[in-house]
């Protein structure tokens, strides 16, 4: 019983952090879904959703409810348990990385020593979900999409990790809070511009978004790995995708854009979250912008770009960083 009382504050903290994580995941999906359709409209010189509420702001709520009301189709030859499991595996792990992201000095679930490793480990579960979904659908397009996704994500995780490793060598810690705090005079994007560029490219590929959305290329693969998913199971995949976008953009903010640093506001330990979210959503805006601007790459171009350019450049960058850290 005493153990229980000593653990109680931690338990309450976990519950509150998990609730906040759920709010972020669903709120982020609503905001990003609306922003995506509205920005797509404006980029194509049309108004976008307009009639559902003022300027269509209820469009995503309406879409979500409609998807809930849709029939759930399970194909006859599908592997039913795996088929039902895949959307959950895509959706559930996104809550854990949100616990360690330092939104501001005081707003953080836990400050783990291995924060970055935790985020990368849980972010790569998404690949497993895509593979399971593609395999269990028993559909050739789903399977092709899943295979492409695995090849792409495994390849792009390497430059992503190495570019982040250069920062780790400079700060000597895996804790996200300390990394964010280490860039108080100068943001790491100034010191490590190459690592930042490589991370941005790898980030787009990791979240399977255009111009690297080969796993769901609709001109070749119908809808890729989620071809057979309807209704709520499809929307769980989409929720997972938007949450993953939020996570990779948060990591970019923490590692390169100074975390919550900005023009100091009153109660800066708490109000730092404003700057943090501003930077995250600017990066997300960038992701949407390039999605509706550039055409899709070919798959061999995609893989060549990773193995022949991104990985060597990130290794060189790492080497230079290590030498400079040793010398200075």
């Amino acid at each position, binding site marked *: 019983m005493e153990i229980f009382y000593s653990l109680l504050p931690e338990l309450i903290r976990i519950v509150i952090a998990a609730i906040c994580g759920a709010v972020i995941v669903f709120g982020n999906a609503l905001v990003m879904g609306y922003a995506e359709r509205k920005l797509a409209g404006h980029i194509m010189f049309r108004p976008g959703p307009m*009639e559902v509420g003022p300027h269509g702001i209820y*469009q995503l709520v309406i879409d979500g409810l409609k998807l809930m009301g*849709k029939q759930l*189709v399970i194909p006859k030859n599908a592997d039913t348990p795996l088929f039902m499991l895949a959307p959950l595996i895509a959706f559930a792990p996104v809550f854990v990385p949100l616990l360690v992201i330092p939104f501001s000095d005081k707003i953080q679930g836990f400050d783990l020593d291995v924060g970055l490793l935790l985020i990368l480990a849980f972010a790569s579960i998404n690949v497993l979900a895509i593979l399971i979904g593609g395999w269990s659908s028993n559909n050739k397009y789903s399977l092709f999409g899943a295979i492409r996704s695995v090849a792409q994500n495994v390849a792009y995780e390497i430059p992503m990790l190495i570019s982040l490793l250069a920062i780790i060598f400079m700060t000597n810690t895996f804790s996200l809070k300390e990394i964010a705090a280490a860039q108080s005079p100068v943001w790491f994007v100034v010191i490590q511009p190459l690592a930042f560029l490589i991370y941005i490219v790898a980030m787009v590929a990791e979240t399977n978004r255009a111009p690297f959305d080969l796993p769901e290329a609709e001109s070749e693969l119908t809808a890729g790995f989620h*071809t057979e998913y309807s209704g709520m199971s499809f929307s769980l995949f989409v929720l997972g995708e938007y949450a993953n976008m939020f996570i990779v953009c948060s990591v970019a903010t923490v590692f390169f854009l100074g975390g919550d640093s900005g023009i100091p506001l009153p109660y800066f330990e708490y109000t730092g979250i404003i700057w943090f979210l501003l930077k995250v959503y600017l990066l997300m805006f960038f992701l949407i912008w390039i999605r509706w601007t550039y055409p899709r790459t070919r798959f061999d171009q995609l893989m060549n770009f990773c193995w022949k350019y991104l990985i060597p450049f990130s290794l060189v960058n790492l080497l230079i960083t290590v030498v400079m850290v040793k010398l200075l």
Partner: protein
Amino acid sequence: MAEQKKSLLNVHSYSKECAERYDGADLQQTKTSDGPPLIQMKLSDAIFDLCRANSLWPLTFGLSCCAIEMMCCGMARFDMARYGAEVFRPSPRQSDLMIVAGTVNRKMAPALVTLYEQMPAPRYVIAMGNCAVAGGPFAVEANYDVVLGVDKLIPVDVYIPGCPPRPEALIEGILQLQEQITGKRFPFPQNKMPEGA
């Protein structure tokens, strides 16, 4: 100007015209029906119907020249996105609305029926253009290949005549479909666009 244009948009719902043309008997044998939903609650039905009406995701599916008008409908000048209907899903599993835009051949018919059967339950069909409505210019003695009206294959909710119909007519058809789903006509347009847009 707008009133004049409105009178030109002559869109027929699935009702008297269709029943008169086919006497019903021919249709009942061939069309597949979803039946009523298992659980029926008035309030939740009303809410879900409102949601379905305002987020009709069409299937990326065009058979011939009417599809050009359908694409035009999603572009800057007409913009179906205003009604939440611009999300053209490539997979039938994720779409609610099939716009049969063009001529249905005997060779295409099995694929069309398969696509319709792959769509999950609250699903709607718009027959766009004369060919999809009743065969159009192909309804002659010498015709050997064209299915005279897509409603011989699948149940159709809204018919849009025209060869091809203008994009405004397709938007009017979508508004008619919304009216059929919710039982209420949404004002057109709710948000006034600038003149000439």
